[in-house]
């Protein structure tokens, strides 16, 4: 229950899913665990299926993620 939030990177384009932040603009609430996202979900940027994401333990750059929160690429 208290596992740290994890981050998953799309191997098709690099799109990041951070469990802590969710994707509210795509209907996924902050705190949503990766396992609770439907198996047929795909990358919103490139269509890569959920199973072709990789969990990454890479830290954020200084000031992120807030600094680029308005970046909609």
């Amino acid at each position: 229950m208290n596992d740290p939030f994890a981050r998953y990177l799309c191997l098709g384009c690099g799109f990041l899913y951070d469990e802590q932040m969710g994707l509210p603009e795509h209907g996924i609430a902050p705190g949503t665990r990766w396992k609770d996202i439907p198996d047929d979900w795909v990358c919103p940027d490139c269509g890569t299926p959920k199973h072709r994401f990789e969990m990454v333990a890479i830290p954020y750059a200084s000031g992120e993620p807030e600094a680029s929160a308005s970046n909609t690429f």
Partner: protein
Amino acid sequence: MESFVLKADDRGYNKLVSVGGPASYIAGHPDAFITRRSSFNFGDYQTGHHGFGKIRVFGDEIFTHAGCGYNMHPHHDFIIMAFILSGELTHINTLGKVDTLKAGDYYAFSAGSGGKHCELNINQEDLHVIYVWVLPDMLLLPPTYQRAHFNSIAPRNKLVPLVGGNSSMPIDQDLSISRLDSDAPGTYEYKLKSPNHGAYVFVVEGSATLDGVLLGKRDSIGVWDTDRITLQTGAEKSDILIVETIM
């Protein structure tokens, strides 16, 4: 020492055409197409190696017919590099850069917090290009674009650093790329940075022997759990890329 050998024909293969479903992604007239040989799992090719160290994509690609390429599309975080083997690449990105790259030219586009790019062959001549995608050591870095040129004449029979390490093109990852253009028999000892580093060696042209394993054109080998590798070349003209990465 641990290793795997990947023969040229055992890589993934995709032919991407500019009509039908992929038309929004693949640019060009209806007869334009891209062929992609993937060293690591990418797209529909998922039966090979997941990657090597921080490398996730190593694509040996040919863009055929004028106008062929990848339409503008988004990326995050990956450091995407292109090494032009022949032909001409027109690269356009959202950092405001429009670049024309010819044989020997290469770039590193770090998508960081978000960027888009478009990759086009606008000439009749085929474009041969190797794309390498690398995970960065931090997420959401400011996007950057760097480009440089590998002169295949002047530094012949010498390992030349292209990216990372001692090169003029730093990247945000513990990974470096070197290139050797050889036309004479030689032995090159390459000392790895640490026991936690490995090397992915790809023969672009010609042939080479890596720690006793003979590699032909487009063959490759991944080596780790060792402190050095030894590359031997013959009289044949050979072109070899070495990617050293933290494992």
